[in-house]
């Protein structure tokens, strides 16, 4: 499998990058670490005439503190660097479970947020697809994994995203027409064929982490078939903030990915204002995971949906427990 021919530009400034993307009218793509994009191009899953490499833009490679107390992580910061950010343990945990060291070194945070959805059909090469009608995600009119489905159910697969959604992080996006801020969860839509809401010409520049409030704990758990180098079957993150009494839940949030088409916040608000007990966490987790909605197994078809849903509940309970423990010790 070889890469198709393409142009590559390495602008030194964000403005230049935005200009290049704007001019290319949808034919261009941002190239960050390339660990997801280049294999997809080799497989002929993604086509692009121009790649705009953003790794030369100094401003996107820094982690900085903003005046409002938030932390801004440049989109081109490596995933490895995020494993060292300790403010939100869930995020560091998630980062350390991404792929393996070398890929975390190449891979960026921005690229991780915009990693493509995965499916055992879509993941295959052009040669494998020879003679086969295209599916939704390859521009066709059918789905092989869920033949009765009317849209693509490829699985959302980033590990950082559920952590960022639970944390309540936002992203900054820039284009020729200006910049906008949006919640991480709003970067996604439930269509595996076009899973991101970013418009062509837009660059994700920063991820903004809110300050971690006092009495807050967070946790991330990933289930995969292997310890490293494997995408999540299910991954869950949870955040719990305790009130001053150290017992009552002030705020709680959680999110799931891996077995869903778009990373999904899980409703754990019922915890708020109540005294936390293991029993309560169990009950709330059992209820909250129903919000997963449609469970997809497109990402690894040998692992059935029922099992994934069941395990998502277990992981949610455990991550709530871990977050709670961290909150008590915070």
């Amino acid at each position: 499998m070889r890469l198709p021919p393409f142009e590559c530009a390495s602008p030194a400034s964000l403005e230049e990058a935005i200009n290049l993307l704007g001019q290319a009218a949808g034919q261009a793509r941002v190239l960050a670490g390339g660990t997801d994009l280049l294999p997809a191009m080799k497989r002929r899953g993604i086509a692009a005439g121009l790649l705009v490499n953003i790794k030369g833009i100094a401003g996107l490679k820094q982690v900085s503190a903003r005046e409002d107390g938030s932390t801004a992580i440049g989109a081109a910061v490596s995933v490895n660097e995020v494993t060292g950010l300790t403010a939100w343990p869930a995020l560091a945990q998630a980062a350390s479970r991404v792929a393996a060291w070398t890929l975390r070194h190449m891979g960026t945070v921005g690229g991780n947020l915009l990693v493509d959805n995965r499916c055992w059909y879509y993941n295959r090469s052009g040669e494998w697809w020879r003679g086969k009608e295209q599916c939704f995600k390859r521009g066709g009119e059918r789905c092989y994994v869920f033949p009765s489905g009317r849209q693509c159910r490829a699985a959302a697969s980033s590990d950082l995203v559920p952590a960022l959604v639970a944390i309540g992080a936002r992203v900054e996006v820039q284009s020729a027409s200006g910049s906008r801020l949006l919640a991480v969860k709003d970067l996604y839509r439930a269509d595996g064929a076009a899973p991101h809401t970013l418009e062509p010409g837009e660059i994700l520049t920063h991820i903004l982490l809110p300050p971690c409030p006092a009495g807050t704990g967070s946790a991330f758990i990933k289930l995969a078939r292997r310890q490293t180098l494997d995408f999540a079957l299910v991954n869950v993150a949870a955040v719990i903030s305790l009130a001053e009494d150290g017992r009552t839940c002030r705020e709680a949030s959680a999110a799931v990915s891996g077995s869903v088409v778009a990373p999904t916040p899980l409703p754990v608000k019922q915890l708020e204002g109540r005294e936390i007990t293991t029993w309560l966490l169990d009950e709330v987790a059992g209820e909250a995971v129903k919000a997963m909605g449609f469970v997809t197994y497109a990402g690894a078809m040998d692992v059935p949906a029922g099992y994934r849903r069941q395990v998502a509940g277990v992981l949610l309970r455990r991550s709530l427990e871990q977050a709670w423990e961290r909150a008590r010790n915070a």
Partner: protein
Amino acid sequence: MGEQQAIGRSLPRLDGPAKARGEAVYAGDLNLPGMLCGKILTSYLPHARIRRIDTSAAVRVPGMKAAVTGQDTLGLGCGPTRFREKSLDFLPLARDKVRYIGDAVAAVAAVDEDAASAALEQIKVEWEELPAVFTPEEAMQPGAPLVHENMPGNISRRIVLEGGDIEAGFRQAYHIREDIFNTSSDSHVPLEPHTCVAKYDPPGYFTLWTSTQVPYMVKSDLARLLGVPENQVRVILPFVGGGFGGKSDGVFSLDLCAALLAQKTGRPVRIAYSREEEFICTRRRHPMQIYLKTGVNRQGEITARQARVIADGGAYSGWGHASIYLAGLFLCLPYRYGAYHYEGLRVYTNNPVSSAMRGHCAPQVQFAGDVQLDMLAEDLGIDPVEIRLRNALEDGEVTAAGFKIGTCGLKECIRKAAERSGWYTRRASLPPGRGVGIGCAGFPSGQGFRLRPDIPAYTTAVTRVNEDGSVTLLCGAADTGQGSDTVMVQIAAQELGVRPQDIRYVRADSDITPADLGNYSSRETVFAGNAVKEAAARVKEKLLAFIADEWQVPEESLEIAGGEITCASAPDKRISFAQAARGWQEKHQGKPLVGEGTYDPPDKKFYEAYSFGAQVAEVEVDKETGQVKVVNVVSAHDAGRVINPMAVEGQLEGSVHMGLGFALSEEMVVRQGRVLNPALVDYAIPVAADMPEVECVHLEVEDPAGPFGAKECGEGTVGPTAPAIANALYQATGRRFLNLPITPFQIVKGGDGQ
């Protein structure tokens, strides 16, 4: 002796530095002048007749040099088991029909890979789609479509083995169990996908550098397929990045296609399989359904065992005609049965081709046999270790399938593995979710049966002493990463009493080295090792005779060691090996000082030496998610005399890795003949972080059949891992798992029986 011993030492691999530095030349690293890139068009239909192939548009693609199809071949079939005409059913380039998604239908050569890919897309094939069969059950239905028209019922081979009176055996039983086991479709996953470079020299000489385990089979088969005399095909073995049985089928599509394209263009052609092609278009482990009925007496001794194995053979025979026989033979290792009956059915389907894979059917049947033995032990209230000790084969026994066992250290392996793992101390007090289980296996070293009547030798070697007293060892053995080159040098060095670094090893090159059947059936250490030892001994004899004559002493009083020859009866006399060799040559008009060796196994039906092993695995299960962590494995192995402990440990650890994947995670998912996960990211082969601690225990039992008493250690070791893990999971979960792989989902679901 100590220092002077070349064997029994962890000599670092001779090829280690070159490999670590990236200097070792694999087929994919070869760059010949004018070399073209070849690519193969494969079938995307599981079963279809080829009406027409039109390459006219492809030929017009810029950079494209030539295309070949089945019409450019003689239309002959091939396969590794030449002793059965019917098994030669694999056409490396299909002619009339394709039988699985992945069958080669055409190939092109172009100036680069892009041009070759573009040209492939321009080839038009007119198909007539045929109904297909995807499971043995479907395939065996009356009236089912035939994968091979001359093979009724899609039965590739049926075989029955009998030993003793099975009815009487079951009558004697105090307790009988019947269970059904299923194993999965595993892939070899060598780090280096199959790669071949072919060169053509007029008027008709072909040279191939191909990543194979069996260079001489490739030579012989390719000559036949091309219709040229054998001496017009030269096969040179480059460094090979792993085979595990997957490169032991002789000619693959890439070999024939590269040769034909090189002939057509007059330029060297390289074809390298992509990882996807490696998964789909090569070979896999036979998935099996194993029905097993076993009777035991009150003491737990097996009075009768009956098995019926149905194997999904896929589209071609591969090694299959041997495989389905071996499954029956290997089920009789490593235990003693009062009576035995085996029926094996290998069935053709329109799935990828099944063939040999490390352990060659032993891991499947031994998984079933060993798990069921655990169940029997429990039924009778006998400790799993104890029941194994009671049934374990011993020195000199004959198995129910007829193997004459030489040395057998199995009982000792079982005891050692149990001791080292804390079987008697910790096992009873493990916390919930933890479990310890045992598995055992046995495996032969090299086969005596003549599967390749076309190749006269089993294995041969030549040693040549050079003018400066250094030694060149010419050996056809195929080191595909297991380290046999190093072991051969150690054996020759030991025999000649020189240092390993004084020996230059010449790897298999069919124009230079003498013939060897290749690296399969765990042959190399015992077979090639014996040949090498003999070749060295011949030189030694010549030298000693010469010196005895010079010194006027009896030959028996001479010793050759530490690079010199000394005499017990004349302590003042000594001569260096180099001087002695020089003297010999001078006396013989400069004649080359050479020694030839061969190994011709005395037992032409079965085998000479058998390795045995026991492993105890400890697992930790997360009952809610079903995730399993194999915490450690103690592997006690009787590989005879250990020539190179480090190399043996490499085999033991590597086979735990393979057994781990076989047990818990690896499966090529095939639907309607199509492999859905042909990629390392989607096929869950374990990674380093998944590996347990492995403790290796060597049992040094010298076997008279092997060189210096060595036996095999590359394949038998895969057998015990999966049953040990499955049995440990039983203790951890209270559930039996009879189907592989035992995924977290299976565990949460609660297994396959009590």
